[in-house]
């Protein structure tokens, strides 16, 4: 792409970066499904935070098909569904958790397994 010029700024700011991918890829999970996050520790990039690995949550909503950051950071877009996954606080933090608090984390198919 050419050098960014002032005349291009409106487009850059208004359009942004399109991480959502318009391809029909089947979702592995549906709203309400229980899922378990993988216990992964890659040396590369990942958007699965340490505090949410190997935990059980519920699919709250399906955001659609997005590039997968864990591989996209290393040149491979690997598009797949991204979901908002709901975890009760005490699932993540045990006795230090708060009753009635839910943590929502956006995660991708490759972060998740069926329970």
């Amino acid at each position, binding site marked *: 792409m050419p*050098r*960014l*010029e*002032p005349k*291009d*700024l409106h487009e*850059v*700011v*208004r*359009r*942004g*970066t*399109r*991480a*959502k991918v318009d391809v029909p890829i089947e979702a592995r999970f549906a709203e309400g499904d229980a899922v378990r996050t993988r216990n992964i520790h890659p040396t590369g990039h990942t*958007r*699965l*935070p340490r*505090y949410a690995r190997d935990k059980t949550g519920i699919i709250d*909503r399906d*955001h659609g098909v*997005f590039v997968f*950051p864990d591989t996209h950071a290393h040149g491979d877009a690997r598009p797949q569904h*991204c979901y*908002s996954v709901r975890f009760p*606080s005490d699932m*993540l*933090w045990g006795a*230090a*958790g*708060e009753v*009635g*608090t*839910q*943590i*929502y*984390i*956006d*995660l*991708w198919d490759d972060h998740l397994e069926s329970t």
Partner: protein
Amino acid sequence: MPGYIVLGKRSRHETMVMPEHHHDHEHGSHLSDTELRVRALESLLVEKDLVNPDTLNELVDTYEHKVGPRNGARVVARSWVDPDYRRRLLDDATAAIDEFAFTGRRGEYMVAVENTPTRHNVVVCTLCSCYPWTVLGLPPVWYKSAPYRSRVVIDPRGVLNEFGVTLAENTEIRVWDSTSETRYLVIPQRPAGTDDWSQDELANLVTRDAMIGVARALTPDALARAEAAS
């Protein structure tokens, strides 16, 4: 060859742990390694014709003066007075916010979450600093700093207390960790005593912090006090 920047000693106010305040040294021999490095990058990239300085100036102007939480406040105020708009905002925030042309860079995909008398939402990015630029502008230092990012997921009630938001024990708290390109906007509750307020007047009650979820919308009294003070 260093793979990373070697960092010198710096005052606690320049660290990430303590948010940085007032360290604007721009003259003479006080140039820090960081200032020198940024100047070196810019001068080399301009010299090689890889960046246009006018573009840099306009980018700064855009994010310093044009994009900010007034955008989000207009969205929220409309959702308070227009039930159809509120429904659209909750169903498909990207489309509803796009009606104001407030989507785009770091606000490409939006979800709006509403506070109710029994539910409170708060937004964070524990892994970096994801934030809805198109409706709130660039994030404040505390939002990007370790104390907030580390604590709000494990102790949201305590963090909210620190911000002056005390919730009833049975209030459900929803913490949104922004780990994807979807960005979250909190719709605070409309304050009491504003029934006859116009949409534009209501927007003055909607603060940045209320749309992150660490504050409530201002009450009419609080707005009057803030205006008197400024």
